[in-house]
């Protein structure tokens, strides 16, 4: 149901024919900030509990350390020419008009400090080159604006030097955490994964109960007790999926879809209770150590369960971490079946089965739906599917089109590598950042609204747990029904022709 706009304490951006480039309104979003992490959250991820006394020196030391560890940060701090190419590319700038949400200005929050402490002109002529001392106000500003960035990399597509603000945001967050000034949402979650194995803190028995429930649901619905195995030693495939898939709507229907595909293709698979999470918020907080620890749980689970393949469910940043970083963080995976990529995306797996004729999809089963597809930023700009560049765009679309007759893409400026973030990625999917989430969703909502109006689109499919949750929460602010959001594998699951299935019409005949 649409949320009454009067409830919100801030203006919800209206949708128009196109996304206008707003005139700058300095400090419009200066009040926005995430909850500060509590000492136990900080300590659970290896950082000091609260702001340390010598935060100034510690922060500068940390910046120096990161400049020596990450070429990206070192090069990006130096080579921006302030050409302005990125200034109208960030969804948070377009939605808030706060100039500090322009990618270059967000980088400059750190670059100004870098210049002051690490460059000659900044040491001798700070005013001339826009250098400034690191003060508590600057630190507060970082806390605010480095949590108004979803690390979506859209700016990097347009930057003539490839400067990726996500790298700067990550460094900013890591410095903040390391002086005891982390954000609660992500740090608490990473701590939970270390302790329990997933973002929700869902223990093994609860997980087992949920998965058994899914099998029962499938039996009721299609007459097949589709198995959702947990901790099955010797299974062929280990599925690593975002924990939201276990219970959240519409995510869980995607998980049912994966289960149906595995079952129909005769693939023996399992979920691990030790590594029951694809999400890796270590990425969001810029912490190599934490990201590596989370990734190594997956490796550990794959060894313990003696699987031959690892498949990753629908999750955007998780796929980036899995595809781009797992080999570095937890590889080499030479003990797994070399006939399959490690890791493999669930969409790649389903697509290959479809190509090989091992599964059949009947698009009539999704009749009445008109689909569009939201490219999730981390999949689009930080990973790949299949053998060819751009497979991350074509493979999910091929699945949707095989599962549903009507498909329409959103405006070319808002899909593929130019896709707009859902507004809730990068560790912002928390209620304390609702205003920036709603405003940042506007460009995506505008493009969606356009295809709803012009092409009668009824559903938007996504392959990211965060996108799905963010859409379900923010669509109503724009007077669009939250039930529009759907998992790609929900469509696949609906359309999958299964041996021994009892279809609804047949059931009603009985």
């Amino acid at each position, binding site marked *: 149901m649409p949320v009454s706009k009067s409830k919100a304490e801030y203006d919800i951006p209206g949708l128009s024919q196109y996304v206008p480039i707003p005139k700058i309104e300095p400090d419009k979003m200066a009040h926005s900030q995430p909850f500060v992490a509590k000492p136990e959250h900080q300590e659970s991820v290896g950082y000091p509990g609260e702001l340390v006394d010598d935060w100034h020196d510690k922060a500068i030391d940390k910046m120096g350390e990161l400049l020596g560890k990450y070429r990206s940060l070192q090069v990006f701090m130096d080579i921006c020419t302030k050409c*302005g190419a990125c200034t109208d590319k960030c969804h948070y700038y377009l939605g808030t008009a706060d100039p500090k949400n322009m990618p270059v200005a967000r980088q400059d929050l750190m670059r100004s400090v870098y210049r002051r402490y690490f460059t000659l002109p900044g040491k001798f002529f700070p005013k001339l080159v826009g250098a400034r001392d690191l003060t508590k106000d600057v630190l507060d500003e970082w806390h605010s604006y480095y949590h108004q960035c979803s690390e979506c990399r859209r700016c990097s597509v347009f930057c003539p030097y490839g400067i990726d603000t996500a790298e700067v945001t990550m460094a900013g967050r890591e410095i903040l955490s390391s002086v005891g000034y982390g954000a609660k949402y992500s740090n608490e979650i990473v701590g939970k994964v270390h302790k329990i194995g997933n973002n929700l803190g869902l223990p093994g028995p609860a997980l087992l109960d949920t998965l058994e429930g899914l099998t029962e649901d499938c039996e009721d619905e299609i007459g097949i007790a589709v198995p959702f195995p947990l901790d099955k030693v010797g299974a062929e495939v280990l599925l690593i999926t975002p924990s939201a898939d276990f219970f959240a709507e519409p995510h869980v229907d995607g998980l049912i879809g994966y289960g149906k595909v595995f079952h129909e293709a005769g693939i023996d698979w399992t979920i691990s209770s030790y590594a029951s999470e694809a999400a890796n918020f270590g990425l969001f907080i810029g912490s190599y150590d934490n990201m590596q620890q989370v990734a190594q749980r997956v490796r550990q689970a794959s060894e313990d369960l003696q699987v031959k393949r690892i498949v990753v469910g629908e999750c955007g940043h998780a796929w980036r971490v899995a595809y781009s970083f797992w080999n570095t963080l937890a590889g080499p995976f030479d003990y797994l079946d070399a006939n399959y990529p490690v890791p493999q995306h669930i969409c790649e797996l389903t697509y290959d089965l479809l190509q090989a004729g091992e599964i059949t999809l009947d698009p009539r089963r999704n009749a009445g739906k008109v689909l569009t597809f939201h490219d999730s930023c981390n999949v689009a700009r930080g990973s790949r599917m299949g053998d*060819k560049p751009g497979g991350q765009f074509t493979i999910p679309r091929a699945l949707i089109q095989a599962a549903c007759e009507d498909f329409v893409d959103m405006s070319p400026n808002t899909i593929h590598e130019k896709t707009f973030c859902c507004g809730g990625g990068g560790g912002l999917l928390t209620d304390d950042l609702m205003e920036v989430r709603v405003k940042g969703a506007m460009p995506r909502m505008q493009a969606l609204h356009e295809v709803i109006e012009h092409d009668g689109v009824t559903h938007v499919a996504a392959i990211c747990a965060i996108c799905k949750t963010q859409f379900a929460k923010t669509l109503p602010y724009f007077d669009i029904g939250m039930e529009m959001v759907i998992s790609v594998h929900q469509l696949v699951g609906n359309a999958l022709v299964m041996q021994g299935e009892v279809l609804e019409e047949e059931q009603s005949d009985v």
Partner: protein
Amino acid sequence: MLTAIYATAFYLATALLLVGVMFKCWRYAKVPQPLVIPTTPAPVTRGGVVLRLLREVFLFSSLFKANKWTWTLGMLFHYGMLLALIRHLRYFTEPVWGWVVMMQWLGVYAGFAMFLGLLGLLLRRFVVDRVRYISSPSDYLSLVLLALIAFTGLMMKWVSHTDVVMVKAFARGLMTFDWSPLPTDFLLLSHLALVILLMLVFPVSKMMHAPGVLFSPTLNMVDNPREKRSVAPWAKTKPSTLSEKEN
């Protein structure tokens, strides 16, 4: 006296430019990139990456996607400057290389392209509120410095000629450490002083984007992380599995 000052300044500026740029590039090369972060879709081969970099360096392909005005002005300025620089080779080569001779006519007009491009970029910095917001004094001054170099150069070509034979003798003298006197007209002395300033500023300014872009990991990395494992030296000391750490 003037000749000695300028000659010394040129040697000093050249040395600082080379040392500065080499030091920065050495630093960029030395700092590892621990994670594979090309902005995708990205090439899956080294050759593909070379093409991607060539497209960025010579066609400004990302900037073209971003903003047609900035792209047009940027192309005018950069290619104008490149052709003007090539034209200046005639002051350093004897006999002047054939292809440099052939490009003389183009180099003359290139100066205008460079100047107009720079004026456009400067105007944009003042007029567009977003770009004005992100501009520091040094951002304006960089453009002004380059525009003044172009302006004084154009003035010497079209309005008040300097003695180019003497200029060439001076330039050749610098190269052979056998100094010849420099003409003393104001335009030439300003032109050269501004160039010396530019050379000094280059390694400690955003002009490092020129070599720096080649080190940008989002552009220069191959998209092959599943096939090829890479680990930064500083990350190698980590425990290889969590269980080892727990034991």
